[in-house]
C-alpha cells in the first residue's frame, strides 16, 4: 500500500475568499459585487489571513504522513540500508601469489573506476580470500562439434590483461589437420631389406585404390626406416585424372578403406567458382562401384587438388592402427615388428586465428575423444608461467544464461606438462562461486560468471579447459569484488557513561552485518553467500581486551552512520563497555549503493600496498557490477511498514505485500498483482498481447500459457512491472529470483503454496472511451469499450473475457471532444 500523497487537506485562498464574500453578501448585499475595492483595509487583512491559511493548510497536509512516520518509528521500523554491488574482476598479477583478507591491512587492494564529469570514483575491494593469482594467458580457443574441430575466437590480445580474456566469436574449420601425418618408426639391423619390403608394400597399397592416404618411405641413419602416412584427398583422382586436371564431364574418385576399418575421411566438394554452384560444400555422390565416388558435370581444366576439402578431424587412433594392420597383411614378414608411432599436425596458411596446437598431445594421451561433451564443446588452451610455484589457477567462465545457477555445463581440465605430454587424468576443478550478472546488451538475459579453481601439477606449463556448450567468454584470474571500501578512522572514543552512548562515524551507508545479511538473503547462489559470510566488515580495538569485530555487540544505524555503544546489536548481543574504556575506531566499510552498479570495463585502476603480494599490474571488469541498491527513503519505508501485523500470508493481498517487500526499493512503483488458482480457473482470462486469426503467439506468451495450463492450486501467478512501461528483462530476471525465494520461504509455513510463475505486466491505455469509474490498474475486461494500446504501440479491441491476467488498463485516452 502507499501512504496517500499530500493534497487532501490543502485549502485554496481564492476559493475561501469567494466563499466568505458569498456568505457576507447574504447580510450585506453590496458585498456581492464581483470586484471589491482592493484598497479596503479590511479586505486587505482578509486576503492576508487567507494567504496565511493556505500556507498553514499546506503544513497540515503533511500531518497524516507525519503521524504514520512516527507511528512506524515507534513500532521499531527503520530504513533499509544501502546494499553494496558485487562484480567479477580480471586481474593481471605482476608478482604471483595468494590474495588474502587482512584485518590489520584492510586497504591492501582497492580497485577504482575512473572519475568522469558525471560520476565520481567508485571503489571496490576483493570479496574473497585465498585466491591464487597466476601469470597466465590464452593461446587458442576451439570448438568441437560432430567430431569436427573449429577455431572459435581468440584472446583479446597477445600480452597483458588482454591475453587473459578469450571471447568466443565466429568459428572457422581448424586448419591444424592440413599437414597431418603419422610416422611409423621401424628399427632394424637390415635397413635395405626392410626398405625393399616396404617399397613393395607401398606398391600394393596403391593397388588398394584407397584414394586418401599417401605413404612415403625414408631411411634415417643405419638402423631406422620411417614410413610416413599422410591423408591427401586429392589422391582420389590420381587414376581418373592423372594429369591433375579435369576433363569435361563426370569425374570418378577412388575412396577405398583400410583392412579392419570402414573409416574414410569426411570431405566436401570445394566452393571453387568453377565448380557448379549446386555441388559446392556438398558431399560427393556415391560412385558406380564400391570404394568410389562421383563428381558429376565438372568443367574442363580444373585442378583436382582444388576439388575436395577434408573436414577438420584427425585420423582416429583405430585408423592409425588399421594402417599398420593393412601393411602387415600385405607383407606378413613385417607383422612381428612393433613400430613406434608419432603423429604430427600443422598448417601452412596464416589464418589470423591461433590454431589449436594441443591436438597432437591430446591424441597421444588418448583424451581427444574425452574432451567432447554434449553437442558442442569449447576447448581453451591456456599457457601458464612454467616457473610458477603455485598449484592452482583461478578461471572465470561467463555463461550466456544465468537463469539457473545450479545447472552448470560439464567441464574438465587437463594439464600439458613441460615435456609436451598431457595428463591422462582430468585435473581437479572446484567451483569457487557463481555470480549472476546483468546482460551486456539491453534486453538480454542475466548472465552467469562462474569462478573455477583448477589444481595443476607442478610440472604443468599449459592447460586445456573443455566445457560443454558455448560460454560467452573465458578468463583467468577472476576474483569477486564488492563495493565496500574500508574507511580508516583512527579516532579513539572514551566511554564516559554506563548508558548507551552514540558515536558518529565518518560515513553514512555503512556495510554492517545487517547489510551483509540482507545481501546474503537475496537471490544469490550459495557459494557467493559463503564468500560474503567470511568478509570482514570492521575492526575496533579496545585496550587490553578483545577487539570489536564487525560491529559485534554494538548497535549500528548503517544508513545514518551512527554507532551506539552499550546497546545490543541486531542479534541481541551487547558488548559491555565500562566508563573509561578507550575504543580505537580502526576501520569500517561504506558503500555507494546503486552507484556501485558500474558497466563493464569501468574498473581500471588499482591501488595496493607497497609490500602487496601478489602484486597486481592491471585490472578490468568484463561484466557490469550488480546488486547495489540505495538506502530506502522515508516514504518507501513507511509504505513498506504501514501494514497490519503480518502473521501467515493468507489472502492474495498478503502475498502481494510479501512480494512488494521482497522487491524492495527496486520495485517501488511497480504494479504487483497475484492471481490465485481459483481466479484463473473460474474466470475467462486473456494473455496480452492478443493474437489475431492466423497469427502465432510470441514465444514468451506461449511459454506462459503452457506454464499456466500445468499450474495447479499450489502455483501463484505473479504479474509485476512499472505502470508506464514494460519491465526490463534484467529487472524481471532479478525479480523472478527474489519472488521465487520469498515464495519458497513462505512455503515452509504454508506448504499449500509451493511456487510462483512470475511474468511481466503490460500497462495498457484504453483509447476512445470516456470512463470515470475505472480504478487503475484495471484488470476487469468485462466493461471495457474502445481499443486497448500497449507501450509498444500495439492496439487491439478489448478481449471478450472477464480478466486480463498479465495486463491492466492504467490510463484512458478519451475521444476528442469529450476531454
Amino acid at each position, binding site marked *: *500500500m*502507499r*501512504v*496517500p500523497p499530500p493534497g*487532501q*487537506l490543502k*485549502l485554496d485562498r481564492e476559493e*475561501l*475568499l469567494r*466563499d*466568505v464574500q*458569498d*456568505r*457576507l453578501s447574504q*447580510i*450585506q448585499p453590496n*458585498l456581492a459585487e464581483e470586484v471589491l475595492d482592493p484598497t479596503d483595509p*479590511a479586505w486587505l*487583512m*482578509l486576503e492576508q*489571513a487567507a494567504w496565511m*491559511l493556505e500556507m*498553514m*493548510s499546506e503544513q*497540515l497536509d503533511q*500531518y*497524516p504522513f507525519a*503521524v504514520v512516520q512516527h507511528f512506524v518509528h515507534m513500532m521499531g521500523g527503520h530504513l533499509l540500508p544501502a546494499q553494496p554491488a558485487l562484480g567479477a574482476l580480471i586481474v593481471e598479477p605482476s608478482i604471483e601469489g595468494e590474495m588474502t583478507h587482512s584485518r590489520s591491512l584492510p586497504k591492501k587492494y582497492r580497485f577504482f573506476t575512473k572519475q568522469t564529469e558525471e560520476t565520481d570514483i567508485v571503489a571496490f575491494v576483493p570479496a574473497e580470500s585465498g585466491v591464487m593469482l597466476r601469470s597466465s594467458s590464452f593461446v587458442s580457443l576451439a570448438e568441437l562439434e560432430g567430431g569436427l574441430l573449429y577455431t572459435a575466437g581468440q584472446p583479446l590480445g597477445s600480452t597483458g590483461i588482454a591475453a587473459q580474456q578469450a571471447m568466443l566469436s565466429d568459428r572457422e574449420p581448424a586448419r591444424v589437420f592440413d599437414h597431418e601425418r603419422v610416422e611409423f618408426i621401424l628399427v632394424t639391423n637390415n635397413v635395405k631389406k626392410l626398405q625393399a619390403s616396404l617399397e613393395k608394400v607401398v606398391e600394393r597399397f596403391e593397388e588398394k585404390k584407397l584414394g586418401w592416404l599417401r605413404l612415403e618411405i625414408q631411411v634415417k641413419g643405419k638402423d631406422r626406416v620411417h614410413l610416413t602416412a599422410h591423408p591427401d584427398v586429392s589422391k582420389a583422382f590420381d587414376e581418373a585424372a592423372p594429369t591433375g586436371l579435369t576433363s569435361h564431364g563426370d569425374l570418378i574418385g577412388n575412396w577405398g578403406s583400410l583392412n579392419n576399418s570402414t573409416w574414410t575421411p569426411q570431405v566436401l566438394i570445394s566452393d571453387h567458382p568453377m565448380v557448379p554452384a549446386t555441388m559446392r560444400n556438398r558431399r560427393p555422390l556415391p560412385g558406380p562401384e564400391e570404394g568410389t565416388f562421383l563428381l558429376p558435370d565438372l568443367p574442363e581444366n580444373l585442378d583436382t587438388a582444388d576439388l575436395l576439402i577434408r573436414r577438420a578431424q584427425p585420423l582416429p587412433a583405430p585408423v592409425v592402427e588399421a594402417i599398420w594392420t593393412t601393411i602387415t597383411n600385405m607383407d606378413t614378414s613385417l607383422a612381428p615388428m612393433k613400430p613406434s608411432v608419432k603423429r604430427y599436425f600443422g598448417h601452412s596458411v596464416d589464418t589470423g586465428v591461433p590454431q589449436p596446437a594441443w591436438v597432437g598431445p591430446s591424441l597421444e594421451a588418448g583424451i581427444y575423444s574425452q574432451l567432447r561433451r554434449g553437442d558442442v564443446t569449447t576447448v581453451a588452451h591456456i599457457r601458464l608461467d612454467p616457473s610458477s610455484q603455485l598449484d592452482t589457477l583461478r578461471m572465470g567462465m561467463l555463461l550466456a544464461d544465468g537463469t539457473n545457477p545450479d545447472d552448470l555445463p560439464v567441464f574438465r581440465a587437463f594439464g600439458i606438462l613441460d615435456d609436451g605430454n598431457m595428463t591422462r587424468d582430468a585435473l581437479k576443478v572446484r567451483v569457487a562461486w557463481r555470480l549472476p550478472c546483468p546482460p551486456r546488451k539491453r534486453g538480454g538475459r542475466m548472465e552467469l560468471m562462474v569462478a573455477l579453481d583448477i589444481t595443476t601439477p607442478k610440472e604443468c606449463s599449459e592447460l586445456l579447459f573443455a566445457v560443454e556448450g558455448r560460454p560467452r567468454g573465458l578468463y583467468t584470474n577472476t576474483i569477486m569484488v564488492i563495493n565496500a571500501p574500508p574507511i580508516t578512522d583512527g579516532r579513539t572514543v572514551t566511554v564516559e557513561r554506563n548508558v548507551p552512548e552514540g558515536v558518529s562515524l565518518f560515513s553514512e551507508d555503512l556495510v554492517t552485518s545487517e547489510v551483509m545479511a540482507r545481501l546474503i538473503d537475496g537471490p544469490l547462489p550459495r557459494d557467493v553467500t559463503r564468500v560474503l559470510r567470511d568478509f570482514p566488515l570492521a575492526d575496533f580495538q579496545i585496550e587490553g581486551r578483545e577487539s570489536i569485530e564487525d560491529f559485534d555487540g554494538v548497535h549500528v544505524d548503517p544508513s545514518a552512520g551512527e554507532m551506539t555503544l552499550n546497546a545490543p546489536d541486531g542479534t541481541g548481543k551487547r558488548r559491555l563497555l565500562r566508563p573509561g574504556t578507550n575504543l580505537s575506531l580502526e576501520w569500517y566499510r561504506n558503500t555507494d549503493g546503486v552507484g556501485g552498479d558500474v558497466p563493464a570495463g569501468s574498473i581500471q585502476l588499482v591501488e595496493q600496498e607497497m609490500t602487496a603480494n601478489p602484486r597486481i599490474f592491471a585490472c578490468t571488469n568484463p561484466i557490469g557490477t550488480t546488486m547495489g541498491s540505495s538506502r530506502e527513503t522515508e516514504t518507501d519505508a513507511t509504505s513498506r511498514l*504501514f*501494514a*497490519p*501485523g503480518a*502473521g501467515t*500470508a*493468507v*489472502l*492474495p*493481498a*498478503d*502475498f502481494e505485500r510479501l512480494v512488494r517487500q521482497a522487491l524492495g526499493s527496486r520495485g517501488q512503483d511497480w504494479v504487483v498483482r*497475484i492471481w*490465485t*488458482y*481459483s481466479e484463473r*480457473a*473460474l*474466470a475467462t482470462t486473456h494473455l496480452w498481447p492478443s493474437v489475431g486469426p492466423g497469427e502465432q503467439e510470441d514465444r514468451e506468451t506461449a511459454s506462459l500459457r503452457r506454464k499456466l*495450463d*500445468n499450474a*495447479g*492450486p*499450489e502455483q*501463484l501467478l505473479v504479474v509485476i512491472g512499472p505502470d508506464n512501461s514494460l519491465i526490463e528483462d534484467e529487472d524481471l530476471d532479478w525479480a523472478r529470483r527474489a519472488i521465487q525465494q520469498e515464495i519458497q520461504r513462505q512455503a515452509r509455513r*504454508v506448504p*499449500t*503454496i509451493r511456487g510462483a510463475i512470475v511474468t511481466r505486466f503490460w500497462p495498457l491505455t484504453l483509447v476512445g472511451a470516456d470512463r470515470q469509474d475505472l*480504478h487503475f490498474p484495471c484488470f*476487469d475486461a468485462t466493461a471495457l469499450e474502445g481499443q486497448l494500446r500497449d507501450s509498444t504501440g500495439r492496439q487491439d479491441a478489448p478481449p471478450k473475457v*472477464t*480478466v486480463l491476467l498479465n495486463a491492466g488498463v492504467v490510463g484512458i485516452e478519451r475521444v476528442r471532444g469529450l476531454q
Partner: protein
Amino acid sequence: MKPDLAARVADLEWAHRQAAGTLERLDWVDSNLDPNIPPFTQVAEGDRRRFSHLPYAVFLPTIMTNAAIQAQRDGQAPMQEALVLLFARMEWMIANRGRMWSPLSPLPKMLATLVEAFGVDQDLHREDPEILARLAAQLPMWHPWRGTVERAKEVLESTGDLNQADGTYTLRADGPLPEILNDEVFVCHSSAWWEERSLPESAAAYRIEYGVLKFQNASPEKQVPLRCEDLLLEWVPDRTLPRQLLRLLPTWAVVRLVIPSESRK
C-alpha cells in the same frame, strides 16, 4: 422539531458531514461573534445545523468585540465575522485531526490506502466514503480471521456486494459429502489435481445439464470428494460469479462450482 443537540458530539457530527461531502462552501459556519459561546459547538437554525469554532472575540478588547457584535446586530458584516468564516474549515479540520485514520475520518479517501493494506481491493471499496468507513471499523478485527467464507461474507456485506456471495458453502472433506456435490460442474484441471482428489472407487458419470458438463456420480461413494481447501460454490447461471469473493479467500483455496439441477430448482 428542533433536534436535541446536547446529546450529540459536535466534532463527530462535523466529521461525519465533512466525510459525506455535505459541508460545501461556508453555509455551515455559525458566525455569531458572541464571546460566550463555548468552542466547537453546533446550533440548530431551523432545519439547518451550523457549527461554531473558537470564539475569536474573546481575544479582542471588549470595546472592539462589542462594536463588532453591535454591527452584526445592525445587519452589517464586520471584519471579525469574515475572519471567523475564513478560519472555520481549518479550525474544524485541526479539531478532527485525531480521527483522520479512524472510521470517523473526515477524509475517508485516506482510508482507501488503509483498507487496501488489509487486503481489500479497490474494486471492492470503490473509494465510496461509506464503504470505506465501514471497512475501516471492521477490518482490524476481521484481519486475524481472514480467509474464511463467513468473514469474507462480512466484508462483502460492508461493501454491499453480499448478494454475490449468498450461494456459497464451505464444506470439509472429512464431513459427510453434501447433496449438492452431485451437481458439480466439470472444470478443466491438471491431472495432478484429479489425482489428489480421486479415490480408487471414484467413477465419473458424465451428463450435460443447463448446457454444462456435470461429472459427479449419483452414488456418494463413487464421487470425487472435497479436500479441506476446497470450497463449493453454488451458482445460479443468471447471476454474476462473485469474483470479489475470490480475492477474500485464501490463495490456496480451490473453488468447485455447482449448478443446481432443474429438479432441485
